[in-house]
């Protein structure tokens, strides 16, 4: 076993300050379950994924975001997975599908929204509006299992001297 510096040295104020200075992005993440007792066909799931990422991004831009960091989602169903990624509205959503040809009645989906120009509380609120719009449009059931945003980014950041 080698003798290196100890983890306590990581309590490095300079480092933390650098991160705060450099991390200029607002973030929100949500883990959800979507469902439809009549079934969700793979093509519909792909259209939903595309629409979800585009809509939440537009909602964030409508409230002040000026650059996409990364907007992405991972859908996990009993019949495979689907990854969606959006970094540029001109390029559009990139989908990587591991779905089979079968329909599924429910799936878990993890959504990450990271944008520049607004802080976490605004990202959370705008993203929730976007999610509800797309869920309604596609007639799906929705259960939010868990969500995450940094309180510091929404409140305390603005109090820092």
């Amino acid at each position, binding site marked *: *076993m*080698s*003798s*290196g*510096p*100890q*983890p306590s040295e*990581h309590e*490095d104020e*300079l*480092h*933390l300050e*650098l*991160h705060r*200075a*450099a*991390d*200029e*992005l607002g*973030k929100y*993440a*949500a*883990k959800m379950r979507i469902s439809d007792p009549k079934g969700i066909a793979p093509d519909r799931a792909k259209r939903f994924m595309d629409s979800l990422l585009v809509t939440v991004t537009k909602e964030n831009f409508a409230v002040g975001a*000026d*650059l*996409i*960091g*990364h907007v*992405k*989602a*991972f859908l*996990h169903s009993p019949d495979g*997975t689907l*990854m969606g*990624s959006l*970094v*540029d509205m001109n*390029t559009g959503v990139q989908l*990587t599908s*591991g779905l089979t040809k079968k329909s599924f009645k429910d799936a878990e989906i*993890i959504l*990450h929204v*990271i944008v*520049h*120009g607004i802080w976490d509380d605004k990202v959370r609120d705008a993203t929730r509006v976007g999610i509800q719009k797309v869920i309604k449009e596609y007639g799906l059931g929705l259960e939010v299992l*868990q*969500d*995450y*945003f*940094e309180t510091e980014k929404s409140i305390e950041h603005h109090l820092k001297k």
Partner: protein
Amino acid sequence: MKLAQIAGFLGSGKTTLLIDVARELVTRGHRIAIIVNDVGEINVDAKFIETYGLKAKEISGGCICCQIAGSFANTIAVLHDTFKPDIVIVEPSGVAIPWGLKRAAEYSEAESDVIIEHAPVITLVDATRVDLLVEAVRRLVETQIREADVVLINKVDAATEEQIEKSRQLIRGINDHAEIMLASGRTGKGVKEIADIIEKRVSPRYDEAVEKELLRKQYGGG
């Protein structure tokens, strides 16, 4: 055990490249583990990586180079003692500082009989968005380029010659010693070359004096 960092701004193609490089290294007979540090407690990337049959661990709760360095060091030690990879590829969050991450990784040596060797630090630059990124998040982009041994200009299949050249000039203006390469996740360009770099080359261990000098250049002061 060798540790390879693949850094770069959000959406620069880190996860796609990481999967391709990891699969290439597996075909060469290496035992690969991947550590990803994503937003909060809800991770997308680790789950996506696992769909390719790769071993992925997610670490949450902050940045692995400082705020949760202890968890990162512990994860490396546990991986070494249980899964026994010969290469660990790390995808840090978009704000990790590469030299800080080296230091955090070396802390694992106090928790296990592992000896850490570093592969060259690889930073990805998205050629298609270089103008936007420099305008909006210049400090972050500069930090990641300044501390890289190799900078990959990525998405060259979708970028114009002008964007590629602009990326090259940006990199050279920030880091005059980094090796510059072109890559594309869509076409696979650069994957074998990056696998070679990770497999065959090493980067220096953490040195406090070097980190302080890099921070001074980036942020000024003493």
